[in-house]
């Protein structure tokens, strides 16, 4: 059974000029222990997806349709108090900025122990031992002493390790990580990615990794979903998607990324920009920028359909279309 099932999720932001659809009917699953990457450019809706799942959508944003099922239990309509019990215990969160994720006024030991005791029936001594073990697992040297330090006494990379420890404190089954390495230096990024992979494997936690960096996705994830204008453009195993992308947007995206291993005269560029939420084109949202768009793309929105090893929301992969075009 899937750990997390998102079915036809719709997230809207009512605005005085009209309602904006930040997420428009997206569906995906995460299996236990799996690492799913959610990648997209700014405005695609990846952070909102994470926020919707954790139940931290900023008002006036709200879930306007669809379902979110955590281990078979519907959580999208839970109120604040119910979500609070789930957060930490069953879903952990890692955000981008380690500086603001930690309370500067409390020692990290205090924050860890508080989280542990909120969700697990442990006394102070047991909670402290667990906190030390977690810090050790995340690679922080001398954890017994560091437990009593304040966040400002840690460097950026160390703080992110503490945040990871916090996220894992109550042994959640799912971790939602929103751009966990973006604010870090390249060398630290590598350390954190390695840590995230190993520790989630060790604690058997699934991860939903939200990022704009395809390189990080390639290194860490098992599967990846590419978001475009609030919809999933393509979803599938990470190597297939990177090496044999099926959706024209994914193709364009892969070609636009500068490659460190070879020289290229020009980077492939996708002309235009992602549409704003109040101006999403009809049919397939990508059609104005797509070199292979045809009539159906302009009028009908494609669902995710099988395209080789991945699934892509693109009429090019509709079986009848191909035969029709061949015979025309």
């Amino acid at each position, binding site marked *: 059974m899937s750990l997390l099932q998102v079915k036809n999720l719709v997230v809207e932001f009512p605005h005085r000029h009209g309602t904006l659809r930040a997420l428009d009917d997206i569906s995906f699953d995460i299996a236990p222990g799996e690492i799913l990457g959610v990648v997209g450019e700014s405005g695609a809706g990846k952070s909102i997806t994470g926020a919707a799942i954790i139940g931290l959508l900023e008002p006036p944003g709200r879930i306007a349709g669809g379902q979110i099922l955590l281990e078979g239990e519907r959580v999208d309509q839970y109120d604040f108090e119910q979500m609070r019990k789930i957060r930490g215990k069953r879903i952990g969160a890692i955000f981008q900025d380690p500086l603001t994720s930690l309370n500067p006024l409390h020692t990290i030991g205090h924050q860890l122990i508080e989280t542990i005791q909120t969700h697990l029936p442990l006394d102070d001594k047991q909670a402290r031992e667990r906190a030390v073990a977690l810090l050790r697992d995340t690679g922080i040297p001398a954890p017994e002493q560091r437990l009593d330090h304040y966040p400002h006494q840690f460097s950026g990379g160390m703080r992110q390790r503490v945040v990871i420890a916090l996220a894992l404190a109550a042994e959640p089954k799912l971790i939602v990580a929103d751009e966990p390495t973006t604010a870090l230096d*390249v060398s*630290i990024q*590598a350390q954190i990615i390695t840590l995230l992979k190993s520790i989630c494997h060790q604690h058997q936690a699934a991860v939903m990794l939200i990022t704009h960096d395809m390189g*990080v996705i*390639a290194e860490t994830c098992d599967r990846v979903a590419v978001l475009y204008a609030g919809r999933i453009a393509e979803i599938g195993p990470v*190597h297939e998607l990177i090496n044999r992308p099926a959706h024209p947007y994914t193709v364009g995206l892969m070609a636009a990324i*500068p490659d*460190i291993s070879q020289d290229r005269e020009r*980077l492939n560029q996708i002309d235009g*920009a992602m549409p704003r939420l109040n101006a999403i084109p009809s049919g397939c949202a990508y059609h104005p920028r797509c070199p292979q768009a045809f009539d159906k793309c302009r009028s009908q929105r494609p669902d995710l359909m099988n395209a080789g090893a991945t699934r892509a929301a693109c009429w090019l992969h509709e079986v009848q279309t191909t035969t029709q075009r061949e015979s025309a």
Partner: protein
Amino acid sequence: MTALVQANDLAMTFDVSAPWLNRVLERKPRTLLHAVDGVSFEIERGKTLALVGESGCGKSTVARLLVGLYAPSRGNLQFDGLDAHAVFKTRQGLQLRSRIQMIFQDPYASLNPRWRVQDIVAEPLIEHGLAQTASELKRRVGELLTAVGLSAFDGVKYPHQFSGGQRQRISIARALATHPEFLVCDEPTSALDVSVQAQVLNLMKDLQRQLGLTYLFISHNLAVVRHVSDQVGVMYLGRLVELADKQALFANPRHPYTRMLLEAIPKMSDSGRGRTPVQGEVPNPLNPPTGCAFHPRCPHANERCRTERPHLLALAGIKIACHAVQEGRI
């Protein structure tokens, strides 16, 4: 032929001491931040030098030294044979400034939100007296906007009406207004999405070819650097550790830090590989290690590395500051 830009032992020290009263009461010494500590390089006309490094390495400070936003604490900058900072202080300084321009990282903060785009692009023209009449000004602004891929009609709009990529184009248009020869680009695409980054990088390359521009390109992204540069300089804690042609650096990185950087970059091709990232983090620039700044993290460090600071020396066509390499140990 002498290079267009020549930096000689540039250094920039910031005084970040506590206020005088606090220092006296708490008996603290002055705190000095050596953001840039002796950097030398040359850029030939029409070429691109990229400076890479992580946070605290001083590359942004170098950029600001080169455009005259800071005056160096030590060393000098030669531009086309002139001592740039000396000239900046004189009346000819304005003329020199028209030859050197800068593009910034943040597309949202680099344009005045209260000004129309046409006024933003026109400002350098007005400041340097490059347009005699209002109609000539308008024409020139229109030309600049179309040269960067926007429309002349976009001039009446305000910056907030444009996307990040378009704002960077406006910044480029502004930078090109005075027909500069040298452009310093401080992480111009770091804040942009991948597809937009591709557009802007392609544009910058095209402009370089058309106008014969020379670039200093600052970035932390080695893949982008590979795409745009001719020469690459790697910085660590205010010092240049390796300076080489692009091909040489990527094919055969010599300095341990360069190797570590290249190893650390998540690659899309071989994923899931087990690799051991280098331990440690960039030390606090206020309290740099003795000797070679990289020695605490370097697997090849020896006693000499802990005590003696390596100098940037030429070695087999590249420049490198590493005892181990110079001694032939690696």
